[in-house]
């Protein structure tokens, strides 16, 4: 979806950069968005409430893209915390031909050998 929407808008999205948490260079505020998403999904550093890395990345995002956009970024994070569990708990898989088409993307993202590949 990221590659598709980027292409449709004439943007190059570097998936290796996304995996490295540095953001894709052509997307506005990519580094801040990826930093926020990374901190928000790192549960091992907090106790379910806040932690300093998350608070810092949230404030940085608010100062660059504003409060409403930051809330919408949190909503997207929430959605994919939901969808990843939906996919993995129901054994969702893509048709074989689709997996083959996306193998390069999966490799770039470092998810080509994960347990959830089925």
């Amino acid at each position, binding site marked *: 979806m990221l590659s598709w929407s980027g292409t449709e808008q004439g943007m190059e999205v570097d998936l290796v950069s996304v995996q490295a948490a540095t953001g894709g260079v052509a997307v506005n505020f990519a580094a801040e968005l990826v930093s926020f998403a990374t901190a928000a999904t790192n549960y091992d550093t907090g106790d379910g409430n806040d932690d300093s890395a*998350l608070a810092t990345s949230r404030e940085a995002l608010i100062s660059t893209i504003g409060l409403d956009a930051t809330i919408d970024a949190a909503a997207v994070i929430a959605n994919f915390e939901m969808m990843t*569990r939906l996919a993995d708990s129901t054994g969702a898989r893509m048709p074989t031909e689709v997996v083959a088409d996306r193998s390069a993307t999966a490799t770039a993202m470092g998810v080509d050998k994960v347990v959830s590949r089925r």
Partner: protein
Amino acid sequence: MNINRHDIRQDLQYAHEQAWSSLSKPGTWWSGAQRRELAVTALMAVREAEPLPPWVTVSSVAGRIPNSRAAPLMAHDAIYRIARHASTLTSDWYARVCQQIDPLAYIELCGIACTVASIASFRRALGLECPELAEEESGEPSRKTPNNVVAAELNWVPVTAPADKSAAVVQAFTAVPETNRVIWAMADAQYIPDKEMVDPHWTRGTLSRVQMELVATRVSQQRECFY
């Protein structure tokens, strides 16, 4: 900056309030008491700074699950694993769970895990406390079953016919329509309304589509979700 509920757009607030309150109400296969109890276990799973490893069941650790329970231990074990270690699940694990839990009840359980993980994540990302779960409502599960539930190739779980004509994530919860409705109402408010999905230029006026996909991709990668 302190964020409060008035900063959150109303459709998103509404979707979350509806989903959160449903956790304490009778569902299709689980009672209100069972659903609330399983939601508490899911919340514990996503909040723990030092979670149990995937191969340790939550019921095997003293003090994690109440001695007096409404839901079976297997359901607690399953929802803990889904909420915290979803990427480690295998078809063998699913088969073992379904030796004790009906596949349709399992789907509803997955929906509870998804709801808790989503809303807890949203609140935490914004530095907001998670709301308390409401007291459980009495009443029996509806046990409403579509008359066209079939096996699927693209999911472990059964779906409504015709199977495998839509994406696996889209058909995954269709055999439990109320769970399916709640989850996709949340998705519409959190991400992109279903009817806008095909438009790469659609936005809410805040994040661009590609910015949304960037965040989505990073979360999926963090969760090691191949799909």
